Structure formats: C-alpha cells, structure tokens
C-alpha cells in the first residue's frame, strides 16, 4: 500500500498501529497504519480488503 500523503510504499507486514511511532491512545487499539516516512494516518484494511489491494498491486506491478 502506498501512503496517501507522501506516496511512498508502506511495508506490507506493517499492521494497524505498527510503524515508527504508534500512539496507542484509541480504544480497542489503533486501526490506522501510520506511514513510517511522514506519519500520515492511512486506513488499515482488514484481511479481505488487504487481499484485494495486494491483487491490485500485483496486476499493476508488471514492470
């Protein structure tokens, strides 16, 4: 997944609340992926949606 602000690729194994500085203040844990490069809060897709996104990236990355 690419960060919605800086456009850099967020490592695939980064889960909700992971990253350089998860704040951990939200009840039930953070459901956002904070970009390790710029800190922007990107949505954290669930398992099914993550698969959809990966499929999309695989189709796109044929270079």
């Amino acid at each position, binding site marked *: 997944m690419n960060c919605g*602000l800086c*456009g850099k690729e967020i490592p695939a194994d980064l889960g909700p609340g992971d990253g350089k500085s998860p*704040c951990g203040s939200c009840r039930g844990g953070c459901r956002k992926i904070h970009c390790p490069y710029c800190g922007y*809060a990107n949505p954290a897709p669930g398992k099914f949606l993550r698969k959809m996104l990966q499929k999309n990236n695989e189709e796109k990355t044929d270079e």
Partner: protein
Amino acid sequence: MAEQQQPLPKVVLVGNPNVGKSVLFNVLTGAYTTVSNYPGTSVEVSRGQCEIAGTDYEILDTPGMYSIMPITEEERVARQILLQETPHAVLHVIDARNIERMLPMTLQLIEAGLPIILVVNILDEAKRLGMEIDLQKLQKNLGVPVIGTVMKRRQGLPELQQAISEYASVPHKTFTYGSDLERDVTRLATVIKGDYRFSKRATSLLLMQKDEDVEQLIVTGENTENLELLQTLVRDVIFERRADLHLQISMERKKICKQMLDGVVQQTELSEKEPFAELLSRWTVNPWSGVPILLLVVYFGLYKFVGGFGAGTLVDLLEGNIFEEYINPPVINFVQQHVSAEWLFELLVGEYGLWTLGIRYAVALVLPIVGTFFLMFSLLEDTGYFPRLALLVDRVFKKIGLSGRAVIPMVLGFGCDTMATMVTRTLETVRERIIATILLALAIPCSAQLGVILGLLSGVPGALAVWLLAMILVFLLVGLLAAKVMPGEHPIFYMELPPMRLPQLRNVLVKTLSRMQSYFMEILPLFLFASFILWSLKMLNVLEGLIGALSPVVRAIGLPVEATSAFVFGFFRRDFGAAGLYDLQTNGLLTPAQLTVAAVTLTLFVPCIAQFLMMKKERGLRVSVSIFVFVSLLAFSCGWVLNKILLTTGLLA
C-alpha cells in the same frame, strides 16, 4: 581433499519499490533462486546466480529503499547489505519516468563510494510520455555507467551484462554542497580514521543525521581517543544545525540533481495524460489557481456530494424511512412486550437508550455521512491531491506571514488528531509543543469529524459558508499566534510531491471501506458508552441538574436549552455532538443561525477522549486540563461572538 570454493563476485540490486528490481533479478538469474529471511529480521532477501561472459556472479535482490538513511526495517536490511557485503557492482534501478525524484539516492550511493551502475528502467513508458533521456550525457555528468533498459522486454540486457562484466572501479566524482555544509562534512571526515564500507564523506553525513547503525559502527571502528573526539564533534554539528539539517541536505541534493539532469531530459512530444497531470499539479499548488480549485472541491465534493447526497438523500433513506418506519417500531414493540422494568426499557429504547441513541446515531446518522465523505476523501487521496493541498496551505500561510512550521501538525491532524498531538513532541521547545497542541485541539477537526459537521451544515443554505468563514478566521487568529510564538527562520515544510494520477477504483473502494469499518468500530462502543452514561445520569436525576447548570452557557450563545444535551454528547466526541445537533435540526428545534453557531462551537471543542488522553500523556495532567478549559472557553466565546454577529446582521435569519 575438497577444493576450497572462492566466493562468487556479488552484484547487488537496490532501488525504490516498484521500479522493476525483481523483474531484473529474475531476468538475470532465471529459475535458480533462493529466498530467505535476512538474519535477525523477517525481511526476505532473494539470492540467485548467473553467468556473464564466462564468470559466475551471485545476485542479491534487496528490499525497496528510498534513501541510504533507513527508516523502515526493509530499508535497514537493504542498507545493511550495502554496509556488510563487498559487491563487484551495485545496480541502482530507477524508474525513468521519475528520474528526478530517484536520482538523489544515486548521488548518495556514488557519494558512499560504492561500485554503482545506474539502470534507467521503464524507458518505454517514459518515451510514451514524451520524455527523451540522453543517457550518454547523464553518464558523463554522474561519472558512473548508465544503462537504459526495458526489463520486462529484456531490452538493454546485453548492455547491462557487458557493463557488469567490464566494471572497473574508478574514484567517483564528488558532488559539492554549500560551503557551510561542506565545512562540517570536512570537519568530521578528517577525524574519521577507521576503515568503513562507505566513504568518510558519506559516513560523516550519516553521523550528522544521527544514523544509529553508523553511530554503532564507529564505536567499534575508531580507537577510544578518536571516538570521543568524533562524537563530540558530531554532537556540536548536530546542535548547531538542529533546525534544518535534513532539509538542507535534501534541498542541496535536489539542486545537484537538477544540475546533473540539465540538458539530459527533454520533453519532446506532448502525450495525452501526463502533461495534463503535470499542469493540474502546478495549478493545485499555485495560490491563484489552487484556491479556486480547492473551493470547487469543497463545493462539489463536500457540499453537493457529502452534504446533498450523504447527509440528505442517504440519511433520509436510512433514518427517516428504514429506521423510523421499519426497524424502530418492531424493536420498540418487542422491548415493550418483553421488558417490564422501566429502567431497562429506558436503557434500551428510551430517550438516551442504547438502541435509540447509540446505535441509531452511529448507523443511521453518522455512517452515511462519513461513508460519502470517506469516498470523496479516498478519491482525492488516490489522485495525489493532498500533498499539493499541504503545499498550497503552506504557500498561502507564508503569503500572509504565517510560519510553515505550523503546517506539519495541521496536515497530520486532518488524518488523526491524536497521532498529530504525539508528533508535536518533535518540536524544539516546550512552548512550541504547547501551542501546537492547542492548535490541534482547537482548530483541526480530524477527517471523520469534519465530514459529519460539513454534512450536517450542507443541508442548510448559507450555513456552510458562514461556518467556513468563521473557521478561517479562527485559523488565522491561532495561526498568527502560532507564527508569533513559533517563528521559523526557514520554510521548514518540505515534501517530495508524488505524481498526480487518475484514481484507481479498487484502491478507492478498499480505502473507503477500511476507513468506514475502522471508524464504525471506533465510534460504536463510544456512542454506546455515552448513551449509557447519559441514561445513568438521567436515572440518577443528575442529568437535569447538569443540563440546568450548562443551560445558561448554551442560552448565552443563542441556543435553545434542548441543545445542551448535544454539547454533553460533544464532550465524548465532536461527531456524536454533531449527530445530536442533526437530530434537533430535523425536529425543527434549531434555526439555521442556531445550527451554525452550535456547529462552530462544537468544531472548536477538544475532538475526542483519545486526543485528551494523548494530551495528558504528552503534556501532563495540569497542562492538558488547562488546554481543555482554555479550548472550551474559547469555543463558547467564538459561539457567543458569532451569535451576536448573526443576530445583528440578520444573516441566516
């Protein structure tokens, strides 16, 4: 006796993600590859072998990296490989279409003294976009071999193989920075005595940028006396340049790249898509065209789509039809039939019931509005509009004398105020951190709350415009205050702009659904909890007293006493309060002017409990309570002033 095998010469592939490194790796190595985790990490590194001109080579495909100064674990592994291996050649693979953005890393690799071959891949796409790249000239400028390729069609493969087999390491060019930066680099480089994989110049720059791995390397690489001297020097340089070192290095590298590319890239023909994307990109960051574009986005994206369709059509359908006619009556009947205790009836379907307040607000009022808002938000996000909007805001702020430093927490705050509050710890002084925390608590609603408030106001003609004007004035007030307290000597806001592109449907849908899901999971327990608290207060006969105590304040800003409960909701979350206001407005209890005053007041509240907890964690209980009181007082004061103005002028009457 078995013959001892000589290690094969290594060729390491490095570069940004999605530039075709893996395709090149597969083309070079064929099917004989192994994938294993890099020792001590979960990051995978692929290794393979190939034969070029009669010599066998080991090929290593590293994880994507944007810079040799690592941030993620993947980048750290890629950099570790460069620091530990002794490669015959390092292939830096870049995307020809984004050559200007990717060349700074080439400079870093050359600066590090690594045996670099620059592979300019995806040349066919660049040509299709009208880019002509003079690779010979680029090679001359950089002083390292440059090979153009289209790896998915194996174009350029023989030339690349020849460059690998004939690679002869020669001293690299030195790219000179500004005199003050050069002075500091030289100061450090002359003290470094150890033998490192990276050049002394690159090691010095990494030390100046507080690279922990390199700091560790010098501990083992330098003798005790020299280490102390070097560490003292590094500390001095870092302290002297604490305000803008990273920015200056980035800017100077960008400047050198521009010189390297001077006359190298020619835009020979106009293509159909990219030039328009570039043109649009320029328009969005220019204040004269960017502000009208922003207003168009607000009008069509927020006012028409979120306000008209989300808060109007969808809420009417869900709340007015489905809930009111089909869901609520059977639910209430069922509870009436099976529950005899009044307290339980009240708890489930009463005025502040878990169903009638908590679930109805979350599902029927808030979700359709934030759903449409998130759809628009994700659509804009996928085009690459947001970094340009940040740049535009920064430019507008500078034009009116505001510091660029205030932009960073604001931009992050629109994503998540709680996280942005934590980011304020990176500011230099306590005073700056407190001001930035106030700015976030007061004037920056997070995207979801913004969506609900905008959706609520869009249904009332004129309300959104007045709200926007009021918020801009508050922005300017707090912004000028911030500029006075946090005067930045240099424009601190710096960001590489990713290319603008057409949004991809699947990306937009996934992001929208993910946001809706996480938002719903976040607010539903909170809405239910708030309903429970309100119900408890009502049962204990405390709520009336509380509403009575707050009602003079609510009346003072021109609102009916019924609006007090919405403000009590607002203490839990601003969007919960906004949903309460929506309910009042649809029941005809609020005039357009009252709705606008209430929305402005509510927007200026502390956004949510999570942010308050973060404020407490970052600034301490005393400061965070003071901020809370200050923000609440200011919110009501602004509401009072706006009410007086609306009454005097007759606006929204």
